[in-house]
């Protein structure tokens, strides 16, 4: 163990790999000292764990109805979070719902930042009218309130999980484009870019191999901070009946189902909301912690 530690913390790394791994290890050591960030990491890992092992953890089927058991209060034996109006175990539905939440978040963070990264780096690298046109388009999308644009898009595309993801992705790429463009502008005129260009590298190669990697850290920080927002927007669309459709156990949808008997059977709407709250709190804590570690500029704050 000590030798591994010594290898990781060697001030004179012998190889590129050792230096990289050592840097990551140092970041981790700093991250570990932040208890709030560790809580966030714990929640995120728990969410992934829950969604992978949902079939093993869930005592009941999330979809099959059992009308004799409808609206049982929490702490009923066998249903510690109670049941909903179709007699389905809320705990089991929450477990399966974590899959949908994770799925939506994954799809959005695999699309929106990539689009933003491409548009931002291209605009920043070429400058001139390319920059002007692309940034004007970005501004147009920024001028819409996110949720309203997502609503209008879902109205066109029709309700459903994939369309909700698409709508959220279309509304969330502009900030990434802004971030990527700003980073590109700072590296565009540096010597290493000029050297690579003199060696005959094409614009595509320069952007892909030399500009984009420089933008990645700030984009990644932004992604982790945005994940909570994605969850909240997706839940909001589900709540309005425009996202994931019944009988799937999406958390926002479950809240809207529980709304009808809020004052008599409070737990039906409360439990999924707690789940959303805990998960997005976890992502927010994780994002804050990562930013402190990865972004030296904000480390002092």
């Amino acid at each position, binding site marked *: 163990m000590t030798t591994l530690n010594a290898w990781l913390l060697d001030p004179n790394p012998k190889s590129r790999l050792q230096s990289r791994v050592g840097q990551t290890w140092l970041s981790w050591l700093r991250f570990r000292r932040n208890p709030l960030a560790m809580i966030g990491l714990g929640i995120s890992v728990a969410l992934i764990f829950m969604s992978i092992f949902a079939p093993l953890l869930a005592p009941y089927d999330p979809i099959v109805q059992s009308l004799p058991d409808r609206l049982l209060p929490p702490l009923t034996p066998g249903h510690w979070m109670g049941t909903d109006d179709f007699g389905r175990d809320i705990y089991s539905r929450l477990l399966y719902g974590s899959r949908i939440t994770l799925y939506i978040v994954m799809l959005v963070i695999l699309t929106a930042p990539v689009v933003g990264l491409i548009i931002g780096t291209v605009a920043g690298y070429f400058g001139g009218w390319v920059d002007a046109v692309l940034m*004007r*388009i970005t*501004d*147009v*999308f920024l*001028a*819409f*309130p*996110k*949720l*309203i*644009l997502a*609503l*209008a*898009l*879902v*109205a*066109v595309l*029709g309700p459903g999980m994939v369309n909700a993801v698409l709508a959220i992705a279309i509304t969330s790429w502009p900030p990434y484009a802004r971030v990527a463009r700003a980073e590109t502008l700072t590296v565009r005129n540096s010597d290493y870019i000029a050297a690579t260009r003199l060696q005959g590298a094409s614009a595509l190669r320069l952007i892909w191999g030399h500009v984009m990697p420089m933008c990645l850290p700030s984009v990644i920080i932004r992604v982790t901070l945005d994940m*909570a927002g994605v969850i*909240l927007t997706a*839940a*909001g669309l589900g*709540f*309005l*009946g*425009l996202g994931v459709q019944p009988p799937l156990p999406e958390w*926002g949808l479950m*809240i809207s189902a529980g*709304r009808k008997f*809020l*004052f008599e059977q*409070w737990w039906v*709407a*409360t439990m*999924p*909301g707690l789940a*959303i*709250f805990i998960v*997005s*709190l976890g992502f*927010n*804590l994780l994002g*804050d912690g990562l930013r402190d570690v990865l972004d030296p500029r904000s480390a002092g*704050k």
Partner: protein
Amino acid sequence: MAPVNSAQSSDAAAQSSAALRFASQSANTLFSLFITFIGLLAVTFLISRVIPIDPVTAILGERATGEQIAALTQKLGLNDPLWKQFGIYVWDVFHGDLGQSVRTRDPVLTEIGRYFPATLELSTLGILIGVIVGIPAGVLGATKPGSWRDLFVRLVGLMGYSMPVFWLGLMGLLLFYGELGWVGGPGRLDSMYEMMIDVTVPPVTHMILIDTALAGEWDMFWNALSHIILPASLLGYLSMAYISRMTRSFMMNELGQEYITTARVKGMPERRVVWVHAMRNVAVPLITVVALSYAYLLEGAVLTETIFAWPGLGRYITDALLVADMPAVLGGTIVVGAVYIGINMLSDFLYRLADPRAR
């Protein structure tokens, strides 16, 4: 005498050139916002054209004859080339024509004129609460970073970021209306007053607190206040989360400056150092923050209005969505987008007015 005069005139020249620069910057901002607004219209136009609902069938119904369909298609200009349709669309919007609601057959703009004041009232009250609570909370945190009260403020703010607003609304209703009975339930008034309002209160501003106060119906005013206070506090909490966080970071930055040390060394009371000297400089970037969260509240209002049965723009849009009333949805989107742009422009303008360095 002469040198003083020349100094004065050069001062005046500098001032007038600064004023000129300010004017030209403002003109620039205006122009770029105009372009952005055209872009916004392009997006809504495209949405309205790719939509799977046929506008002709939507207006005439299923049993229209072929001639009727042809006539209406001609009248709506659907045979024109796309660029011409867009031109007509922009022309119409700039003349206040956002189309006709499919549901009620009323012009969309007239309907929005009825719904928007309710949203404005709700989010204005929300931002007031957010500013009144958020700025002192942020300052409290910044003056003693790392203390328990700093941690508390940050935690409350972080929770505001992480909670689904519609769920928080439901929980608020459950607790303060259902269990405690401290506030009014959904809607703008109790149903008893709701029946009276059309008779006794003339709709001057369509904002219920102002209208009832103007009409002198104080019972109704207090009832309306008990209904608005919960959704407004909810929106206030959301904006407070953002405002307190930004205030804290601006204030900490400012308190590290040398002029603050100077003021302290001179023996100025700490309260005056923070609230007068530092606050003046914190206030400038805060203008943008407050404006942004005000614009954001318009968006947060969509879900809040659904929960609280609040007859505002957000609920207008979602209700229209559920019956596929696209002119209403897109009209609402345009208005919200325009307000959003307008608020951004205003904050930009105020920022440059408040901070000479930005000019």
